[in-house]
Structures are given as C-alpha cells and as structure tokens.
C-alpha cells in the first residue's frame, strides 16, 4: 500500500463536480482507494461516499491506494488534488 497526505485547496471542497472528475479518473485503476478523513474511511472510487463525507476546503485527508497499479493511481490522485481539480 502507498499513501500520501493532502490539504484540499479548491474553495468549494469535494462537491459534485470535482468528485465526479476524481471518481471517473480513479475508476480506471484496478487498485482500491481508501480516503481517511476525520477518523472515517471513505471509498475513493464512489462519488456518493465521497460527497457524503463532506470534504471541504482546508480539510486534511490521507489517500491510501492498494493494488497492482497503486503507484500510478496515487500519482494521478495527487496531481488532481494538488491542482485543486482545475477549480479555484
């Protein structure tokens, strides 16, 4: 398993649109993704679970990937989160 910590930098947090972009990208990978947030585990491949977690601007999260392509998955996730999902 590989993992990395992030802070959410887009103003609106992980609402519908960024969650949708994120989940679509993550579902290309065979590995599983678990997002640790606020003491909870959130399935990183499920838009409903991500939205229900209500991950907001400034939230600290840990992304854990495990599986055959875990490195590549974490890399792409990092790129998306750090760029603020192309939002402000």
């Amino acid at each position, binding site marked *: 398993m590989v993992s990395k910590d992030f802070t959410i930098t887009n*103003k609106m947090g992980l609402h519908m649109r960024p969650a*949708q972009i994120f989940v679509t990208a993550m*579902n290309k990978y065979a590995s599983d993704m678990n997002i640790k947030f606020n003491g909870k585990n959130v399935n990183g*491949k*499920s838009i*409903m679970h991500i939205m*229900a977690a*209500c991950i907001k*601007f400034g939230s600290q999260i840990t992304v854990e990937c495990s599986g055959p392509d875990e490195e590549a998955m974490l890399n792409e996730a990092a790129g998306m989160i750090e760029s603020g999902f192309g939002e402000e």
Partner: protein
Amino acid sequence: MLRGIGASQGFGIGRAVIIEDVNLDYSAVKYSGADGEKARLANAVEAFTDETRQMVEELKKSAGAKEAEILEGHLTMLQDPFMLSQMNDNIDAGSVAEAAVDTVCTMFYDMFAGVDDEMMRQRASDVKDIRDSVIRILLDAKSVDIGAVEKGSVLIAKDFTPSMTSQIKKENVAAIVTEVGGVTSHSAILARAMGIPAALSVINSTGIINDGDLLIVDGFSGKIFTDPTDSQIAEYTEKQKAYLREKESLNIYFNKPSVTKSGAVKKVYGNIGKAEDAQNVVQNGGEGIGLFRTEFLFMDRDHEPTEEEQFEAYSTVAKTMDDKEVIIRTLDIGGDKDIPYLAIEKEENPFLGHRAIRYCLDNRPLFKKQLRALLRAAVFGDIKIMLPLVTTVDEVKSAKEIIEECAKELEGEGKLFKRVPVGVMIETPSAALISDLLAREVDFFSIGTNDLTGYTMAVDRGNAKVSHLYDAFQPSVLRAIEMTVKNAKAAGIMVGMCGEAAADPRLIPKLVEWGLDEFSVTPSSILQTRKNICECE
C-alpha cells in the same frame, strides 16, 4: 384568499391543476428471486437514465444550462457502481428491487441531510428525487403529465422536484403554488429562471383548492385569490401586462455596465439581511453587495452564534457572489433590540446609547468572534469589513487594532484567512463632519442615509407628529452627504451609499455629480437604479 411566500415575481391568472403525489407503496410487490429483481433494477436504472437525459435537454432549453446541471447530477449519482452494488447486496439478502432502492437511497439521504451545509441538504433532496423516480418506474406508476397541461394552468403541488419542474412548459403555466419551500428552494429558483410567478409554502393548498378553480396568484406578496371577481381579474391582467412591460424595459440593463452619458463608471450593488438573499442580488444584476446586515445571525435565538456558524454564513455569501465585492457590516445592535442572551441593558435613549461599534468595542470576545469569522471567510471572495455608527477616529483605530489582533491569532493557529479592507458607515452627523479625518484611517465609506437623516434632523421617523421632518432632501442632510463624498474623493477612497436615498431617482443625478462611486439598493431596485444612472449626464 390564501397566503404564502412570494417566491417568483409576476401575477398569474389561470385554472388550477392539482399535481397529486404518486403512490409509491411497494408493500404488495412479490420477490421474484435475486436474478429477477436485479434485472428489474437494471431495467429501471436504464429507463431512469433515458428519461433523465431527455429532461436535461428540455430543461436546458426552458431554464438554462445551470439549472439542468442538477438533473445531470442525478445521473452521476445513480451511476455510482458502489451505490448500485449496495442495492444488489440488498436484493441478495431478500429485498425486492423497490426496497433495495429505498434502503440505500434513504441511507445516503440521512448522511447528506445530517450535515449542516446548504449544498449537502440539496444533495439530500436529490437522493430523495432519485429514489422516488426509480421506485415509480419499477412500480410503473403514472404521475400527472405536467408537460401536457393546457395553456393558462396554475400548477399546485406539495412540492416540485427537479424531475417535475423539468417537464414544465413555461408558455402553458400561468403560476406555481406549493405547500412547502421558501425563496431559495429548488421550485423557487426554477420558477424565477423560467419567469413563472410563484407562491410557495401555501399551507394545505392542494386540499383547499380544487382542480379547475379559477385563481389569481400574486408572486410578489404570495397571495392567492381563490374566487376572484371580474374586476379583480381585469385589475390583475392589467398589472401583469404592466409588470412585463417594465421588466422588458429594464432587462436591457441586466448586462449593461453602470456608466453615465459622460462616461463615469459607477457600481450598483444590493443590500441583504440573510446569506441566502445574495442569490437575489445576482438574479437582479447586482455587481456586488454594498451592505450585508449581520444582525439576523444574532436574533431569534437563545445563544450567541459560534464563529463556525458565522464563518459558514459569510463564506456562503462570498461564494455566491463569485469574487464580486461583498461589504459586511459588523454587529449593529442596541437597547432597542431584545436579544436575551446578550443581556443588553434597557436604556432611556437606545438610539443615542450603548449600541453598534460602541457595544462591540466593549464586548471584545463577541466582536472578535465575528471578526475572526469574517477574516476566515474572506479567503472565499472579496469581503470588506464595515463598522457601523462610528462617531470618532479613536473608535476606528481601536476596531482596526482588534482586527489585526484577530489576524495575528489566526496566523498563530495556522488557520487560513485574509486581511481585508476596512471601511466605515457614515450615518451620524459627527462622522460626516470629520469625514476628512476618518478618510485617512479607512479604505472606504458607505453613507447610511436612513440613520444619517434621522440623526441630522433629530427626528424619529416612526412618530407621525414629526415624521414630515424626516427627509433626505433637507439641505442639512444633503450637505452632510456632499461633504462626505468630497472628502472621500479628496483622500482617494471609495465612497458608496447604502440607504434608501441611493435608489431615489430625484437624488441620483446629484450623487453622480458629486462623484459617489457605489449605489447599494434593495435587490429589486438594482436595474431601475442602473437605468437612472445610465441616463445621468
């Protein structure tokens, strides 16, 4: 006559069409085996997807792309493979497809509805809408075909879901009436986007009104005339025509800049009292918010709002305004308001007493909580802080020190925040008379003509015996305004006005001539004010 909330402007006259809730009772459905139920579910999801795609296209045409996004979101949510697999797990455990959809959607509904966040509550109602639609498809239950109603129909329902509103053909619907919802509900937003008059929260309207009843719906006041006379019908037909004519003539100012004939660029902003009213400013073409009164956050409750609650309200406004300027006034209360938990002493002369900035400077923990929330919310947009009832330079200096103290604290705590411009409200003769001195301390002025008129004329506008003296056209008031504007100009700071006088067509030419930069008015007066400014030399 019935009464609700006026949620979309205009007057509608027509025949009632009651939209009954579809019966979604699935208790009689028999389990057809796991494979059978899974196939039923897959078919229903496919039918839902087709139906919704079609609605998205229709809604894009009738209300615009932004409104259609809500429904596109429904597709995304139901296509979540994890949501579907949870439904299939329920079927494996012996549930019929309807129960599986109900259980899983309700679980997400509870998760979303439990979060204290407007966007999450919207998602909760989305999940409910998805659940109802998929179960309706599974049961093959028919709802009233909203798209097929005759011209001149007044639609009456408990509430309108996005999938219902998407079927509305605006040329056939004279008005909308619901039993629940307020000005920010989905029904209200859609009604305004489509220009259909609406009265919401009309209690038991589906019970009181019968199919085919002739109705007049006043979308301004929320009134419904259930048995209108011929003369009322004639009156309201005329009113609707006049309203449409006026709207048409003002609409051309929606995207126009507020520029006078000689090319002076002005700004027309809106005044608001609640975070959700920011939406009204945007819909009326406002270029920003010139006055956000924060008192409402403190009233009608039994304890002080937390920093988080305030942060939520201020950042909501900043986000809604999308980087446009938002001027937020700090707490403006005194002995005339009854806020039990603040225990403000009753005073003989509350309007000359311990209120507004005076009260806040003496109650630092309360003041600092608000300032910290403002500085944190500033990250989300262009927030400026405005201090009310200033009469001395020292008050401004003290307030600025406290603001800086809050900024340092937030810095130390590693919290995200932004330092923001600070301005004062010019609403006392004292502030106007020392506006040259105040201008050195602050980044902007906003002239509050309501209190400035009252304090300058020493008159209580509520007292009928003296209220004739309450007049912004009194030379003393005009001089105070002129002096303030000129001192701001000399110091090179922005000067606006947020009292009723800013929308007065007789005063606007004078204000333009003196050089006032910003006019902040009630949202419904924004376009008229811009028109008046554009017609100035």
